[in-house]
């Protein structure tokens, strides 16, 4: 297996690593607070991409039994035929957690803007110093 094919087999890995680095960069390096939150969302979704990749199986179908109650006897199910449901369940929860945190963070941003009139971190720090000094 050559390098190119190896990279293709690990395509999602490459993808989530790149995305996570973008997210971390935005969270730490950007000065605008909304940008930080955009970075935070990218960061969380890249982790979700990683875990969802764990659930994939080659040539497998989605984890729903299609003829469940149709033909009387329960169908015989083979684990290799269906994608792994467990990581998907975990990531459903993670997405929900992510949106709750985003909501709280955005609410904080509204308060910050009302109180200090800016969402740029360096201006915010200046105003904080000014208000605490007086």
């Amino acid at each position, binding site marked *: 297996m050559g390098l190119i094919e190896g990279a293709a087999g690990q395509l999602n890995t490459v993808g989530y690593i790149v995305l996570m680095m973008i997210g*971390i960069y935005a*969270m730490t390096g950007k000065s605008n*607070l909304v940008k*930080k939150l955009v970075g*935070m969302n990218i*960061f*969380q979704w890249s*982790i979700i991409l*990683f*875990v969802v990749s*764990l659930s994939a199986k080659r040539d497998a179908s989605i984890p729903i039994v299609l003829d469940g109650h149709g033909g009387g006897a329960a169908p015989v199910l083979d684990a290799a035929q269906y994608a792994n449901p*467990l*990581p998907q369940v*975990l990531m459903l*929860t*993670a997405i929900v*957690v992510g949106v*709750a*945190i985003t909501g*709280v*963070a955005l609410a*904080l*941003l509204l*308060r*910050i803007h009302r*109180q*200090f009139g800016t969402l740029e971190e360096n201006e*915010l720090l200046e105003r*904080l110093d000014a*208000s*605490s000094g007086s």
Partner: protein
Amino acid sequence: MNVHQSAVPILVVLAPLITSFLLPVVGWRFRPAVFPLTLTALALSCAAAFEAARRVARDGPLHYYLGGWAPPWGIEFRIDALGALMLLMITIITLLVGIYSKRSVLHEIPSKEVPFYSVFLLLVAGLIGLVSTADMFNAYVFLEITSLTSYALVSIGSGAAVVSAFRYVILGTVGAAFYLLAVGYLYGATGTLNMADLARLLPPLYESPAVLVGFAFLVIGMSIKMALFPMHTWLPGAYSHAPSAVSALIAATTTKAAAYLLIRVMFFVFEPRFSIEVIPVTTVLGWTGALAMVLGSVMALAQSDLKRMLAYSSVAQMGCIVLGIGLANAAGYTGALLHLVNHAFMKGGLFLVAGAIVYRTGLRRIHELRGLSRHMPVATFVFTVCAFAMIGIPPTGGFFSKLYLMLGAIEAGNWVFVAVIVLSSLLALAYLANVLRYLYFPRDEDGGEDEAAAIPIPPRRHTAPWTMLGPMIAVAAGILLLGLFNGEVVDRLVVPALPAGLDAREVAR
């Protein structure tokens, strides 16, 4: 299916959880019921925690299969000696802070008590769930409940609280996301999420890069959550701007819960030898902890705001706990656990006193507190007890945890650590003695003009109300009891919580 187990482990978490769901409904129609309901839930949870601890001491670890599904397929609650210790600590502290919060919440955030107590109970439920669960992902969910509630509670403080809360959100989310990533790696390598199952499957995989990196992310994430030195930047702002009751609650519990999770994974999910031999995490943690102790104490020394000073002191004390973990021997581990419990009590107590001072006088600066002991004798006394514990003066619990840490450092042959522990105690003496000096002595030798600047306390209300005094006195008593019955505490609660890989004989007193 059709498993029936004693419901005690789940009751500890269900009492605050369900009550927090009930509060908005009850508070919508009948506001006065909110506080009694909150206290009932906390007391119930505390009682269940005592019962659980009693059973753990009698029969060994408690198991509870949620939904009746046996692990590793379902989620398991597992309370062992370590979990029982944490449960007792969390429920006692939160009950005390709950009683204390009545007046201070009315004072600092009027008209919001319904959402406040709902979030308060959710935080408690999150902490309890975090220490009870035996499932890695379930721990993540509870970790996020804890963080989300902490962000909200910090943000309702005064001044720049929202900015501090936002910084806390960003760093806290990174920490939790790293934990989730670690869980993903461990799941990818083993295919399970249950802690006991992981402990069984992991040893052959110790050399695998995925496991190593997962572990590294976990340690980094938890270090952020527990504000270990280079990642501590969220803590001072969050603690000093939060409302007083919240400062006490968060300082006493959330960082400790992260430390618990780190201990749980390092010593129970992985074998201790993994973090000692396979990758030198303990060494790194030990030195980082030492650095945090020194720098945190120095920064505390430089603060003029009482709550901010206490916050930096927290950074130093978390360093102390991490140093104990990093020593990775029985004495060091015992010291770390003892210090975790002691610090929860003493820092909780200090923040409670700081809150009472703010409540009564509105003063925050240390140099403004001149001669406060005449006005608030009980609060100052509690402050003194907590300060003695922080410094490590014998009758208090703080002395013994530092003693065990020293023993651990000596056993590890690391004299630098011994010096660091002594140095940090001296620095703690320096910054706390400074406060005590102002509290007890009306004026400096040189500063005659300060006499005029007496504290503007309204007459006839010299002391804090009993709902504030009671919990403060209880905390002080707790610290003294932890010191006086230290042997009992170590034998009954800490020694059973030693992980398998660390030698228990060393701890014999």
